[in-house]
């Protein structure tokens, strides 16, 4: 028997086993080369889909919030907020605030002293680190009046109806008919950057306290009175750099 015949005889004898083994090996090779990459691709697409799904949910949430927003109310209220907390030191609104305080409370403002410090451009202001202390105008006010007028004065400086002033220290001198008080306080300004975050960045939340402040400002300040005040006080530039 020659060698070829012998091999053919062996193949013939084990053909079933060989064919089965070959199929299994072939399937393993096919699985490694075609099926496994398919699963890897599926896994990749799935994870990308998941990321996209999260982004979509964020966007849906943001879109819903934006749709619920009262753009007109914001447009009307923002100038009012800026009147209370301007973007620069704005001494004109401070003088106007004192005029208004005098008019509405009945106290007599004897002297005012502001420490304007450095007056900077908007970009220079923005470089400063965040913190209320970075954006204050220290001031001293001397007023005279009776107790109820002074009480009104104290209430009005921080009742969000004009430029916000916080009174820190005070010296009360009691005279025969009236009281003279020297208040050391702070007015504030806050330069804000017009930049907003990425398109899928969440909107900052408006807590109940902030909502209350917003409502109060919207109620207390009338645009007409701001415009009137700006006309009434003739001055040069309110900001050297503008």
């Amino acid at each position, binding site marked *: 028997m020659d060698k070829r015949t012998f091999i053919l005889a062996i193949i013939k004898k084990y053909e*079933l*086993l060989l*064919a*089965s*083994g070959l*199929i*299994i090996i072939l*399937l393993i090779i096919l*699985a490694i080369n075609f*099926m496994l990459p*398919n*699963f890897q*691709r*599926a896994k990749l*697409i*799935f994870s*990308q*889909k998941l990321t*996209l799904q999260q982004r*979509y949910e964020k*966007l*849906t949430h*943001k*879109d819903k919030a*934006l749709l619920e927003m009262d*753009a007109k109310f*914001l447009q009307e*209220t*923002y100038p009012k*907020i*800026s009147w*209370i*907390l301007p973007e620069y030191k704005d001494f004109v609104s401070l003088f106007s605030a004192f005029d208004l305080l005098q008019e509405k409370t009945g106290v007599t403002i004897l002297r005012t002293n502001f420490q304007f410090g450095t007056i900077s451009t908007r970009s220079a202001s923005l470089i400063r680190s965040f913190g*209320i202390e970075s*954006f204050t105008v220290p001031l001293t006010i001397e007023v005279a009046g009776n*107790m109820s007028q002074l009480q009104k004065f*104290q*209430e009005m400086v*921080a009742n969000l109806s004009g430029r*916000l002033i*916080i*009174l*820190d*220290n*005070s*010296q*009360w001198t*009691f005279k025969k008919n009236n009281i003279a008080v020297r208040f050391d306080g702070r007015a*504030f300004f*806050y330069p*804000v950057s*017009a930049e907003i*975050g990425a*398109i899928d960045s969440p*909107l*900052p939340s*408006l807590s109940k306290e*902030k909502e209350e*402040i*917003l409502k109060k400002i919207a109620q207390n300040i009338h645009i007409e009175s701001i415009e009137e005040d700006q006309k009434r006080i003739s001055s040069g530039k309110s900001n050297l750099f503008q």
Partner: protein
Amino acid sequence: MEKRSINLLIQKDKDPLILRRLRIILPVAASFTLLIFLILFIISINYVNENNAQYNRLKVQTDQLEKKIADQKPTEGLYTLTVRKLDVLDKILRENRNLVKPISEIIYMGSNLLDINQITIESDNRLAFSVSASSSAALDGMISALLVKEANKYFSDIQATNILRDKEGKYNFKISLRADANLFR
């Protein structure tokens, strides 16, 4: 003539047991593997296609939503600025103190026989004032009133210094005390 039979066929060797078992198991295993392969392959293709389609649909929806949000950028900007400023205002208002209330507590405490000239309020809620009492009874009255206020937790850490009696018989002294933080609200 006698008939003789000769067996010309070679006796077939019996295959080993393992080979006999493999002859049964391997074809079954191959068929099963083929079936599983086909099923998994079809599933994987379907899964990829389905996920791909879903991803593309989601991508289109996301792009549309992004465009919609981008169109509302002015409102978003205004809202963001408003919230930032409100945040600062909230912080500032938390520092606000009513300086009139503690003053009222002091000036309405004394009788006509007491003369309070000057009151100073410092940022650490400390108050200092100078008093002139026309008699020792008025002085006692003032001290008693202060003790009541201390008992009611309005004032604490009360100190009286520089007590002097002038030529007219008036008692002059300085009082320093710490007012309760609630009094400034």
